[in-house]
């Protein structure tokens, strides 16, 4: 369970998160929508401790993320994140990209790490690309590789930060299909996305962020069907 309690975060004088409360249960899929600069991506990077927070607390399975005693490297094995930019390691092949963390972070033997990497890459449809360098692949393929790389650590939670925003339109589908597959397998996910149709399909709940505040959160039918917040109404009208 991920518990986010009254989290505040500023970059300089700009307050990007103004007291966010959100609890995500095991097995739940929560998507976060909202305009640029609404703080949704920042929240994700705070959840696995890549960004410090100014106030409030985030607790993952009883571990307070920003406590001084928390071993963030250990926590991050549990909470995978995939970014808008897929950030392939360009000097490693696709297989090596996915094997690296299981070998070095989990300390698995080479054969075991390779077995996991092949399994995850096959799962996201890249079983044929094992020995290719990532720069030789399309953005969609690289993003799926990044997803496999995160999954290879067997995380219990996955955070997706606008993973399709940097892709050409024709490549968005293959990545969303991968996310749909994960959701159907019961992975606990928080997805920041601009894909409204996708959000509607996979989410248990959808949260709308506006200027650092979670203005509305509801199951997709309610949020898209009968939005209450005036900003959300405007946002949905603009995106349709």
């Amino acid at each position, binding site marked *: 369970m991920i518990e986010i309690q009254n989290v505040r975060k500023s970059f300089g004088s700009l307050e990007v998160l103004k007291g966010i409360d959100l609890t995500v249960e095991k097995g739940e899929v929560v998507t976060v929508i909202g305009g640029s600069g609404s703080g949704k991506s920042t929240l994700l990077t705070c959840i*696995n401790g*890549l960004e410090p927070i100014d106030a409030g607390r985030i607790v993952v399975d009883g571990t307070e993320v920003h406590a001084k005693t928390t071993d963030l*490297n*250990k926590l*991050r*094995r549990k909470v*995978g*994140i995939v*970014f808008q*930019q897929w*950030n392939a*390691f*360009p*000097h490693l092949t696709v297989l090596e990209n996915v094997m*690296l*963390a299981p070998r*070095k*972070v989990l300390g698995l033997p080479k054969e075991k790490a390779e077995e996991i990497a092949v399994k995850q890459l096959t799962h996201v449809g890249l079983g044929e690309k094992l020995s290719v*360098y990532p*720069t*030789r692949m399309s953005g969609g393929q690289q993003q799926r590789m*990044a997803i496999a*790389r*995160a999954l290879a*650590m067997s995380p219990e939670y996955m955070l997706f930060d606008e993973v399709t925003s940097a892709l050409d339109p024709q490549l968005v589908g293959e990545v969303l299909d991968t996310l749909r597959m994960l959701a159907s397998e019961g992975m606990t996910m928080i997805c920041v996305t601009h894909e409204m149709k996708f959000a509607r399909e996979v989410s248990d709940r959808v949260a709308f962020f506006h200027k650092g505040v979670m203005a509305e959160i509801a199951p997709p039918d309610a949020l898209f069907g009968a939005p209450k917040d005036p900003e959300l109404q405007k946002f949905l009208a603009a995106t349709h």
Partner: protein
Amino acid sequence: MFNTALTISDLGFLAQGALMTLAVTAVSVAAGTVLGVIFGVVRNQIGPYWSAPLTFVLDVFRSVPLLIQLVLGNAFQSIAKLGWPPFTTSCVVLSLYTAAYCTEIVRGGIASVPPTTRRAARSLGMTWWQDMRYIVAPLATRVSLPSWIGLTLGVMKDSALVLWLGLIELLRASQVLVTRLQEPLLILMICGAIYFLISFPIARLGGYLEKRWSND
């Protein structure tokens, strides 16, 4: 055929000089690179403000002519009663000189690795050290290699200046022969050819590694 007074033993003398050039270069480039990597990483980690004193010292080593550094370094070790032989003094000064340049190369190489790539590594649970070792080091090395090869070749040629501390390296050995045999053209051509023979493999190694790392 032209006549020359150059004998086989003279060529052996030149070869000994070349070995001295190689030894001074190898020690200085090795030590200078290790120091440069350490300084470069430190500068990247602690930021420009805290590394200002280090940057200043390295700037001095980059801007003062090497000859002056060698003479002053020798004077210093003498005043401090360190009792260093010329070889040690030469290697220490050349190492610091190399380190000053290498620091900039390393810093640039590290800075060339996108922060988002490093963030991805950390988000997988890698420690700072693992990120440095498995992501930053290989990527920064690829970017830095051409400059580092250039630095190595430069130091190899600059090492001729250690003759002022009395070391008989390749150029000094040539001078000795020129003075004795009065055949400057031939001897300097041989001397230049030897410098080339030393440099060429290093340059080719650089080209080979670049090609190998280009993922093609």
